[in-house]
């Protein structure tokens, strides 16, 4: 997912429901996921 979206892996978490999805795991078309940014500017 991250590769397709051209997102740097260290800048986000991928969350499905309550669980974290490791960066190399494929997600299914029917999955609802949150791509949550983790970088703060302070």
């Amino acid at each position, binding site marked *: 997912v991250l590769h397709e979206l051209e997102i*740097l*892996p*260290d800048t986000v978490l991928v969350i499905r429901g309550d669980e*974290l999805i490791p960066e190399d795991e494929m997600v299914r078309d029917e999955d609802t996921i949150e791509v*949550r940014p*983790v*970088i*703060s*500017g*302070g």
Partner: protein
Amino acid sequence: VRCRKCSSRAVIGLPRHNSAFCSACFDEYVLDQVQRAIKSHRMFGRDEVIAVAVSGGKDSLALWEILARLGYRSTGLHIDLGIGAYSEVSRKKTEAFAQARSLSLTVHALREEHGLGLSEIADGLHRPACSACGVIKRYNMNAIAAEHGLPVLATGHNLDDEAARLLGNVLHWQDDYLDKQSPALPASHPKLVRKVKPLYRLAEREIAAWAVLHKIDYIVDECPNSQGSKMLIYKDALNRLEAAAPGTKHHFYLQFLDRQKTRASHAAPSPDLRECASCGQPSTAEVCSYCKLVSTLKVVP
């Protein structure tokens, strides 16, 4: 992917350590890294009460929770910067976190002190909001901690923050700042408290993951004033390097710290501190930066 320690299903990969962990082993890794940071820099002891600077973001709330889990006594300090809805949500999340865990919290509201929020103050001073914010937070956090008799202030700065700051300091050869860039700064004046950064060994993404795994309800939105900040530009550059060569940020910052130990004997002595003529807080000038900022607003501190 399987956990490197116990072979359960991994929830997070850590390319910089060529590793992956399940939830339980990742928890152990995070607590171990923080304890290692505290011990190696002699940040504080279990007999001290630690002031934790809490913004409502992932790093500071995770730090507060981790210190509690490690058995340290702490109290939270929150500055309500008065940046519209962002500050309202940040404060609410901080207060809810403290209340749910029966942790004590002191809130200092800028708008109650000056009648203005940070954005209006920065506009009035014609200076960038982040620069005024730094002065305001440093001054108030120290003053409140000292007033409460707390010997040490812990902030949630992480490996990414420190590596980005180091990159900025190196790019501009800020020797003074390089000398002071340490996870533990001693109190160099009776009215200054020690400043420590127990999360410096953990990457920003690792802390966010830990916060999610522990269901910490933090503010995900970024401060509206930080858009386009230099810190974000430096972090982006470092994250591009990290993607190509995992471990770059870790080596860049931790090897700087190793070199700093040998540089310490050659470092310039700390500047002489006197007490600000206006507020009495420590300052290198006759009037401290905070009082200068406030006097420009023509508001008495």
